[in-house]
């Protein structure tokens, strides 16, 4: 919000003026009003572990995060480049595997990844598009540069909070909105529908598109109902679908209706008990065969998780270079592949300043945070790395950028990230903005909704 000299950045000016003119009581009332809208509209997520699933509202911070159009253009071109390359990578490894032959990405890394699906080998997907929907997490370093923290190529969620957050903000701050020249995001559902339409199996000109949800107990169920309603498509569960002669039908009161495109919000593992986890009751028996037969499109395709694997992440800059012959527009967080001698030596020399992650793990397990580790832990990781260098990557300890938030009527700053949503159908589209997630607990770097994270509206504004 402020420049290094302490002045207000120009694109924050209308917001700043409004805040200066508003007494604390008024802001507090605005905050209550916004919470109430969220509650009444049932914009909730489910917290697990309690009887019959407890619904909570997703904390929403009133102060928007503002990004200039110039910054946005860079993000946009960077994401288009990255997603194009990752999609080419997926097509390649599930077909000829040139990138593996050329030794750019180690074969073993791909074939031992638990998200690699050998069932996808040689399968042609419509228009060659594997990742119809991506949510890529970006952070900003201390110099203000955006960099990619993580790609979510399987079933990214959160877009409903982006859309409903915007609706609420427009109701509460209509004036600032007009003055700031915020670019609209409301066409996301329509753009998503268009992308799904574009990916229909050949010869299905007016495809029937459905959204497949695991059901009411899923934490993102609100989002599933929201998107289905916004797109005007049917929200189905696994038990609503039937596969007969490799064609997928949904069971309706007027008989079986053929389904052409499934926007699935169920993980690979659970989607078809015959092809993947046989104990899944959420999926549809026979769906994968229908998919292989080309009679139905799954968005995203099966097996996209290989490209957002932690170890593979380190190779993304090289993947971009390999397929597109370009330097990455958005850098990765610097990542050392410890199987490589030079990187390993550097990491071992600076272990107390590094974060070390085991590639097969997620959610903070098998991780060393150098600056916070004891001498014994450092020594333990040194041995682990030397014993099995392939299993580890390292990164310098990050300083996430912060943004001002309104907490209990006071201003304070909190760490934030940004997740734009990238759609890929006939072409790649990104609505300007995304979901800004906030670590609401002071000092915390964790932005997940289940761990005290919240959201903010994200405004992309014209500087002129």
């Amino acid at each position, binding site marked *: 919000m402020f420049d290094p000299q302490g002045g207000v950045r120009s694109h924050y000016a209308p917001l700043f003026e409004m805040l200066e003119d508003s007494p604390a009581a008024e802001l507090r009332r605005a905050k209550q009003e916004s919470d109430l809208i969220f509650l009444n*509209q*049932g914009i909730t997520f489910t917290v697990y572990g309690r009887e019959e699933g407890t619904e909570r509202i997703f904390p929403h911070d009133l102060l928007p995060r503002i990004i200039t159009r110039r910054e946005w253009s860079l993000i946009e071109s960077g994401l288009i480049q990255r997603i194009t390359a990752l999609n080419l990578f997926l097509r390649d490894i599930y077909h000829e595997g040139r990138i593996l032959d050329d030794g750019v990405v180690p074969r073993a890394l791909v074939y031992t990844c638990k998200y690699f699906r050998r069932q996808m080998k040689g399968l042609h997907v419509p228009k060659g598009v594997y990742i119809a929907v991506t949510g890529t997490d970006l952070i900003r370093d201390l110099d203000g540069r955006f960099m990619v923290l993580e790609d979510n190529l399987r079933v990214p969620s959160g877009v409903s909070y982006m859309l409903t957050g915007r609706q609420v903000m427009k109701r509460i701050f209509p004036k600032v909105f007009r003055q700031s020249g915020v670019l609209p995001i409301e066409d996301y559902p329509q753009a998503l529908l268009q992308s799904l339409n574009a990916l229909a199996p050949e010869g299905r000109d007016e495809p029937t598109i459905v959204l497949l949800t695991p*059901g*009411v107990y899923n934490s993102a169920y609100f989002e599933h*109902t929201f998107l*289905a*309603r916004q797109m005007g498509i*049917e*929200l*189905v*569960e696994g*038990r*609503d679908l*039937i596969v*007969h002669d490799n064609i997928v*039908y*949904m*069971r*309706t*009161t*007027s*008989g*079986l*209706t*053929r389904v052409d495109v499934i926007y699935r919000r169920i993980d690979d593992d659970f989607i078809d008990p015959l092809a993947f986890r046989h104990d899944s009751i959420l999926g549809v028996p026979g769906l994968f065969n229908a998919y292989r037969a080309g009679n139905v499109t799954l968005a995203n395709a099966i097996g996209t998780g290989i490209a957002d694997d932690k170890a593979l992440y380190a190779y993304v800059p090289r993947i971009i270079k390999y397929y597109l012959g370009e330097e990455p527009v958005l850098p990765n967080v610097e990542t050392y592949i410890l199987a490589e001698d030079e990187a390993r030596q550097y990491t071992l020399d600076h272990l107390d300043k590094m974060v070390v992650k085991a590639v097969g793990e997620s959610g903070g397990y098998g991780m060393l945070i150098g600056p916070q580790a004891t001498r014994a832990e450092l020594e333990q990781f040194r041995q682990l790395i030397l014993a099995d260098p392939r299993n580890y990557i390292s990164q310098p300890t990050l300083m996430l950028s912060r943004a001002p938030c309104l907490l209990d009527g006071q201003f304070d700053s909190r760490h934030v990230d940004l997740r734009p949503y990238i759609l890929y159908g006939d072409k790649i589209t990104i609505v300007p903005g995304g979901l800004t997630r906030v670590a609401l607990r002071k000092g915390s770097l964790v932005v997940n909704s289940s761990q005290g994270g919240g959201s903010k509206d994200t405004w992309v504004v014209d500087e002129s």
Partner: protein
Amino acid sequence: MLSRVADSLYWMARYLERAEQTTRLLDANIQLMLEQKPDAVQRQLSRIHLSLGAPFRIEGSLSVPALEHALIFDAKVHSSIISCVMAARENARQVREQISSEMWSELNGLYHFVKRYEAEDLEQQLPLEFLTEVRRNISLFKGETDATMSHGEEWWFLQIGRHIERAVNTSTMLKVHAAELSGEADIEHLELLALLRSCNAFEAYLKRYTAEFSAELIVEFLLLNPQHPHSILFSVRRLADSLAALPDVSSRGQRSRVERLAGRLVATLSYSSVEELMSGGLHSALENVIRQCAQLHAGIHQAYIDYPIEASLPA
């Protein structure tokens, strides 16, 4: 519409109708029993129990507080108010995006209201205020349903659920009193009033027949009155009309079966006199209605919800 959605809507309406029935029954009988002798109270308690399809086992003799407790709070008793409201809400939650926000908010409010009511409140005083509030809430829900939801297929499935449940409920109520109404056993004046009140029909009966209570007139009213919404004839007619409004799936042959079943039931009642129905035995006539409703339920399920795949593949 998805079959699963139709099924949830159907059951949501059935459970709410059942909750209303239990509420009305308690409401109509609690005051009555204050004025009755102990043995009459026992008889009445067991009638209430049977009217709800004997939803729990009675050990020893039943007391008024025990029955109230079971029918209000006991989640294991399938026709208790709490069970029915919870089941209706759970069905609504499954199809949250298909019903209007107003409907959801009424039903959710009812659920929280019922959950808040505690056994201690019941010890303090008769639950009459509670019962009134439940009824009011259900009525609000039905009002919102008619006012805020499109009267399309979804709405018709709600009508089907409501009226099939109501036809069965009124039939069961009458069946429990069949011996008395056929003159084979004695019945007190107060008990007749409770029967009419339990079917929401007391004032309507007075308008139709004045304050002259005879068993035969009461049977005629509850069974064959074409205008009263709780009479069996009215309910099955509504049921048949709602079925006729559903999409045509005649290619599968199942719809014609459902229509035939509904048509036969309507015809049997429309073209019968009360004397005829009673001459063959009131009890068996009512059993017959209940059995036909069960067949209709199964027929609807087979035609719209759980039909065989082969029969319905597009040509």
